[in-house]
């Protein structure tokens, strides 16, 4: 295979699932390109990616704030009422001396999701304003490092499992935060499924290449 220079490598895509090599082709706005071997989406083209991404990540941050400040579930056992919030679950672990689990949980369900969406919104804002070439690069590298460690979706399923375990012992009331968490998880899944990190890199290249034509 012959290439003009190293930058021509940007026209190639390797499927992240089965590692098949593809040549990138221009596709219509709003459509996607799939792997010919396993059918995984390789990339999408969205001419307004920065705007969409910014809107989605700000919405996700709002839902995240609601999910953390308000009670998640409230239970009634023998006349006693108890409620939990997301921070309370890992603070509770700290209180009972489980520092390691508490630390791991606080990172997985609180710090990393918060960081991911803050980074998303900052990066999209930078790309929209066409500033911060270096900062956006560092943020994107950080983003890929912490992406696999965010577990809000798993936490949501855990809440359901925990509640099913309690059925029969206690009366359960869902709080606002629970619905906010569902909205947050749905947005999280939507964003991570539809906006691939490589697409943000491609957008970044388009944005900053226009800035300084050499």
């Amino acid at each position: 295979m012959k290439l003009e220079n190293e930058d021509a490598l940007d026209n190639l895509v390797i499927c992240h699932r089965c590692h098949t090599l593809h040549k990138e082709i221009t596709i219509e706005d709003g459509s996607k390109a799939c792997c010919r071997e396993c059918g995984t989406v390789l990339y999408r083209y969205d001419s307004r990616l920065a705007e969409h991404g910014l809107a989605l990540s700000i919405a996700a941050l709002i839902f995240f704030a609601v999910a953390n400040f308000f009670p998640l579930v409230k239970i009634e056992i023998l006349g006693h009422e108890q409620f939990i919030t997301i921070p309370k679950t890992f603070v509770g672990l700290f209180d009972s001396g489980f520092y390691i689990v508490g630390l791991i949980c606080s990172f997985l369900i609180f710090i990393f999701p918060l960081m991911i969406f803050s980074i998303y919104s900052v990066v999209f804002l930078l790309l929209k304003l066409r500033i911060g070439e270096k900062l956006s690069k560092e943020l994107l590298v950080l983003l890929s490092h912490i992406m696999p460690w965010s577990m809000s979706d798993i936490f949501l399923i855990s809440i359901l499992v925990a509640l099913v375990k309690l059925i029969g012992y206690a009366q359960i009331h869902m709080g606002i935060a629970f619905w906010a968490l569902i909205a947050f998880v749905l947005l999280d899944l939507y964003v991570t499924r539809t906006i691939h990190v490589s697409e943000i890199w491609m957008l970044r290249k388009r944005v900053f290449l226009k800035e300084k034509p050499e």
Partner: protein
Amino acid sequence: MIEVKEDELIRCPICEAVNIDKGKENECRRCGSSIYKHQTFQTEKSWAFLITAIIAYIPANLYPMLITKQFGATEGSTILGGVIMLWERGSYPIAAIIFFASIVIPVTKFLILFYLLISVKYPLGKDKKVNKHKLYYMTEVVGPWSMIDVFVVAILAALIHLANIEIVAGTAATAFALSVFFTLLAAHAFDVRLIKENK
């Protein structure tokens, strides 16, 4: 003009840019992160994490995960004990979820990583038509779900601490969380390029 062979192209694990494999020190041309630079000890790092995870998985199964203090009586239940209790009580779907998340997924992940780590060193299963890339991808996607049990314990412990009834996390919670943490690290430390070399 530069001439590249197709199998010399590698994917940056951080930003997914396609790079030319230059052998020892690969720096991604787009994001600048080094791509698996530990050439001298290719699989050892992954092995170390995997063995730590397996060691942590043993106490995770022996010690109680959940301790229920009810009217002065303390009762602990291990992971498997909890699953059996749920099954007997008739909550089959929940028992199945917990069983899958805390036993099937970690064990299969250990086995898959074991297989991958051995097969890249020794020509094991070379002619079998197993797509090792897909196998690896699967462990990455399914792996985090084993955290369910730890989260459930955290939620129950935070939710139920009344005067008479109290649920506390057990020693196994720490061991299990560490085990999951180290399996994730082991999977990340695995050099995907080795799969290709030994195809």
